[in-house]
């Protein structure tokens, strides 16, 4: 096997290691372990197996045997999707040659290049891809602790039973009750997500509980697609939603789960359902592996998604400090392809091409009223930088908004096929 000298990889990182001999025929296949079976990890595992045609030993470690997409979970809350439609299994991935292990990864020894699973098994790797999503910063919202309060004031920011719980809580609010959301500080997964959720909750309440009220308590002074969200809220849910930014106490919020109250700038309000979305950091296994920085995210090389701390480790998606890209499923899927291409080139000598990244995020305001935002990105020496962006604007006609919504349905089918096969 000849080494292809046209390896267009980024500056700096370990070019010496890249050009050293890859695995020789006759030895065991190079091993790649992927931790996290979501938009980043599933895409990476699937592309590695598919494109290497059996030359790589690919293992995917994902604790959940069934994956529930967080993207589109708001549409389930709004009654536009069935819960089962969010769920995807890993059978096609396994049939494509990936070894799927449904266990939690509990340790990473980067010196020995092994991953330890909850059951005690050690998995050796030549390259490790981490895509463990997010975990919550303890103490980020005064009065709320993940362990104690997630069942009382759900975060529903990791899709699954939490999503079903939140939807049930919305539906069982008393007439004229109050739904409160404590929105997260930057950076967090899915910038428009909380506001799409508000739109979906408002849609449910408009039909079943029209005198109910929605409070959004926000530490941020602006949010993605704000103009179009606010236009949509005024148009469809007039008078129902109050957004309270930092100027009026949105950054000084305390919640009291035992008494179902929120305290905003000293003022106490009784709430009937409360969605707390805390501040976030990389999924714990990334910190355990020692690839995160003091901000809680994993710095990566913009040209390849390789960890800046360890040349044999790649970090994708929400967990990565990913420059200008937002933390989204689309972005994770885009980054996964760059990482998979780089890993494959390093281990099998295949061609590596210049990295390209893209993102688009769709949000639903109301039936047939969809909006979107997106951008293209290029790696630079400093970071993955945004180059060209677009966003839905106010005043768009109904036909365009309907088309935008339908586009999102096509995207969901496309990306889940891309992830799971």
């Amino acid at each position, binding site marked *: 096997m000849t080494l292809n000298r046209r390896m267009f990889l980024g500056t700096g990182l370990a070019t010496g290691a890249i050009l050293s001999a890859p695995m020789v025929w006759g030895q065991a296949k190079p091993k790649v372990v992927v931790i996290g079976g979501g938009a980043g990890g599933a895409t990476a595992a699937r592309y590695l197996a598919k494109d290497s045609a059996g030359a790589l030993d690919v293992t995917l470690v994902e604790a959940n045997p069934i994956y529930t997409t967080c993207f589109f979970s708001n549409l389930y809350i709004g009654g536009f999707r069935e819960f089962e439609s969010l769920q995807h299994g890993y059978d096609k991935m396994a049939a494509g040659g990936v070894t799927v292990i449904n266990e939690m990864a509990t340790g990473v020894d980067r010196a020995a290049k092994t991953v330890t699973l909850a059951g005690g098994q050690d998995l050796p790797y030549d390259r490790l891809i981490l895509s463990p999503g997010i975990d919550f910063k303890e103490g980020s919202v005064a009065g709320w602790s993940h362990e104690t309060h997630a069942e009382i004031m759900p975060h529903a920011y990791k899709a699954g039973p939490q999503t079903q719980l939140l939807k049930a809580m919305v539906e069982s609010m008393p007439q004229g009750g109050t739904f409160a959301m404590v929105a997260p500080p930057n950076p967090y997964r899915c910038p428009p997500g909380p506001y799409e959720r508000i739109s979906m909750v408002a849609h449910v309440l408009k039909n079943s509980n029209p005198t109910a009220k929605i409070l959004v308590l926000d530490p941020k002074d602006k949010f993605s697609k704000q103009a179009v969200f606010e236009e949509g809220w005024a148009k469809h849910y007039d008078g129902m939603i109050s957004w309270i930014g930092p100027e009026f106490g949105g950054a000084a919020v305390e919640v009291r789960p035992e008494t179902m109250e929120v305290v905003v700038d000293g003022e106490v309000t009784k709430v009937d359902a409360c969605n707390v979305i805390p501040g976030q950091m990389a999924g714990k296994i990334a910190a355990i592996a020692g690839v995160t920085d003091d901000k809680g995210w994993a710095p990566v090389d913009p040209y390849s998604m390789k960890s800046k701390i360890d040349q044999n480790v790649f970090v994708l998606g929400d967990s990565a400090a990913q420059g200008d890209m937002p933390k989204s499923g*689309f972005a994770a899927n885009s980054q996964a392809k760059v990482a998979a291409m780089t890993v494959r080139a390093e281990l099998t000598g295949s*061609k590596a091409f*210049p990295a*390209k990244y893209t993102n688009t995020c769709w949000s639903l305001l109301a039936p047939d009223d969809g909006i979107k935002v997106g951008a293209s990105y290029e790696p630079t020496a400093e970071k993955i930088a945004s180059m060209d962006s677009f966003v839905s604007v106010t005043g768009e006609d109904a036909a365009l908004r309907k088309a935008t919504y339908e586009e999102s349905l*096509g*995207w969901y089918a496309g990306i889940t096929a*891309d992830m799971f096969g």
Partner: protein
Amino acid sequence: MIRGPRGKLAALVLIAATGAPVAAEEIGDADRGANLFKQQCSACHQIGEGAKNRVGPRLNGLFGRKAGSVDDFSYSKSMARMGADGLTWTLDTLDPYIENPKALISGTKMNYSGLKDAEGRAALISYLREFSDAPSNIPEAEPSIIGTDHELAPAILAIKGDPAYGEYLSSECVTCHQKDGSDQGIPSITQWPEEDFVAALHAYKEKLRPHPVMQMMAGRLSNDEIAGLAAYFATLK
């Protein structure tokens, strides 16, 4: 930095250490920009945490906002009118303004003769950019780099007709356009005659066809890359 023919900032393609072309360039040296700001701007403007209006308005959140739009600042009529006419501060409009404020906005109150050094302006703009929305938090925020002409890439990569490159490029497409040809909200792109495929992508690239996502996707593809994609997608059953 050189001024391109349409007055926009054009950038030289930066060849990184391993010989790979970078399709975009950073605006400038933000550290140098910080020094320039201290020397040339801070007499009148504040920026960053706790910035207030002084002789000039505070410059937080400058990128993407209309000229003359800071709430509690008393602008010249000239600046206010420009803003009302739609002038927005971006990488492209700040450069000529900082070079010679009165050339862009005749009656501006900003008493500054201008910064003639193009690299210095780029450094300053790069510094100013740090105090506006981060695209990671607000994806629609102003870009933080300048795209370069992607036409140079094929000459360097010599990928004309390379099927592997076509397949790699296609990975960007199949997130939305499904490989099995199904058509749900997003049109199918498999089994098109190659000339039709090429014509469609060029129409998006030239912004003849509307649709911002496709204009963006096609805009960063060279003619050879478009041909490669057409060839690849024609083969899918």
